[in-house]
C-alpha cells in the first residue's frame, strides 16, 4: 500500500467512525432493533417539525382494515435547502417504508429507507459545492 493510500484510508476511517452520533438522539433508545418492519401505504400527512419530521401513513391490512402509522424521518431544514417542500410529498402518495418499530410497540417507526413503489428513493438531494480554505492549511504561510 502506498503512503498516500494509507493516509487516505486512515482519514476516512476516522470519518466513518463519527457517523452514529449525527442524530440528536440515539435511535436505538426509541426503536427496537429486534422489530424490523416493511410497510406499504399512502401518506395522510407530513408533519414538518424539528428535530425530526414525521410522515403519517395509512397501511391496509390483509383483512381490509386500515392501520395508521407515524414514521420518524429527517429534519425539515436540510430537506428544504435541497429543494424539498411540503408539496413534495402530498397526501395520497403511495410509499414503502423499511424501518424499525418503536420499543413501546405503538404504530411508530423509524423510516430507515423510504421508496416509491417503482424503487426510487423518496428524497435524495444532490451535494453542494465546496470551498477550499487555503488559509488554515498552507504551511508556507
Amino acid at each position, binding site marked *: 500500500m502506498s503512503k498516500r493510500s494509507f493516509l487516505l484510508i486512515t482519514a476516512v*476511517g476516522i470519518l466513518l467512525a463519527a457517523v452514529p452520533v449525527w442524530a*440528536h438522539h440515539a435511535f436505538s433508545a426509541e426503536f427496537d432493533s429486534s422489530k424490523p418492519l416493511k410497510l406499504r401505504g399512502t401518506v395522510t400527512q407530513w408533519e414538518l417539525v424539528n428535530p*425530526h419530521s414525521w410522515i403519517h401513513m395509512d397501511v391496509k391490512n390483509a383483512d381490509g382494515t386500515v392501520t395508521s402509522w407515524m414514521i420518524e424521518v429527517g*429534519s425539515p431544514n436540510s430537506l428544504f*435547502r435541497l429543494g424539498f417542500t411540503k408539496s413534495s410529498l402530498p397526501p395520497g402518495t403511495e410509499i414503502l417504508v423499511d424501518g424499525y418499530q418503536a420499543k413501546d410497540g405503538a404504530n411508530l417507526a423509524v423510516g*430507515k429507507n423510504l421508496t416509491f413503489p417503482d424503487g426510487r428513493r423518496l*428524497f435524495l438531494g*444532490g451535494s453542494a459545492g465546496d470551498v477550499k480554505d487555503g488559509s*488554515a492549511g498552507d504551511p508556507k504561510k
Partner: protein
Amino acid sequence: MRHFAFAAAVAVICALVWLTSVPAAGQSAQSGKAYTPAHTPDGQPDLQGFWTNNTITPMERPKGLGAKEFYTEEELNDLIKHEKNRVALNEEEGRPTEPGTDADVHYDFSQFGLDRGQTKEVWNRRTSLIIGSEGTIPTMLPEARKRNAAIAAMNRGHEFDGPENRPLSARCIVLGQESIPMLPGGYNNNLEIVQSKGYVAIMHEMNHSVRIIPTDGSPHPPAAIREWRGDSRGHWEGNSLVIDVANFDPRNPFRGSGAKLHVVERFTPVDKDTMLYRFTVEDPETWDKPWTGELAWSRVEGPIYEFACNEGNYGLRNTLHGARVAEEAAAKKAANK
C-alpha cells in the same frame, strides 16, 4: 423527480461558484496584502452575515500520520475525491450496517439531506483541527478521569428513569454544535452574525440559539453564575474578534471538561467570504496543558431556518414510554414465574 432535478441544478451552480481556493490568513487573494474588512458605522470590523463551519477535518490527527500537520495539495485532492464518491453513494451502499443491530436503527442520512457532504464543506490542508505537531487532545489528568467515571456511574441503570436522565441533546436543551467551542455537527451547520454597538450576536441554526457577546469591556459575572455555553465577553484586536468564555455549567462538559473550563476564541476575517476561527481550551482540572484548534467559516446563503426542537420532540416521550412498557413486561414476567 422535479425537485431532485432542481436540487441537482442548484448544486452544480453552487459548485461552480464555490469551488475556488481562498487566500492565506489575513491576506487578500490578488495582492497578498493583509485583508481589511469593511467596518460597521460605529467602527467595528464587519463580520455580519450568514456562515457555515461545515468541515470533515477531524478534531484529532488520525493515527499513523505522526507529526504531519498538513496534507499536500495532491493528498487533499484525493480526500475531496473520496468524499465526493462517498456522497454519490446512498447510506446503504456507502455505509452498510448489520440488520437487526442497534447501529442499523437509524434513517438513511443521505436520503434526508442530513449527510454533511450534501451541503457546502470547507476544506483545508490541515490533518486535524488541533494545531501543532501533536495534533491530539492532551492527556487527561487522573482526577478528571475519576470525576468523569463517577458521573457516568451515577446515571448507570437510571438512563430511562425520567427526562432528567436523558442527554441534554435528546432533551433539546443544548446540542453539541451550539456549544463552545463552536464545532460542526452532522447537519444544520449554519450561523448568522449580527453586530450592534457594544454587542456581537451569533445565532446557530441547530437549536436556533443566540450567543450574545458584550464587547463593552464588562467582566464575567461571579463564578457562581453558570451557563450551558458559558459567559462570553468579547473585544477587538485589530480586525479580530476575541472572545473570552468562562462560567461554564459543568453539566454540559466539553470533551470531559470540568468547572474550570476556559475557552478563548478568535475570529479573523481573511477575505470577504472567509473567516478563521481559532479556539484555545484550558482546564487545569482536566488536561495537563491548554490546546488549540483552528477551522474556517465560509459565507453561505441565508436565511437561517427555525429549529423549534422542543415542539416536535416526540422522540423523548417515545423513548421514556418504551422504557415503561419494557418495565411492565418484565414485572409481569417476574410475577408469572
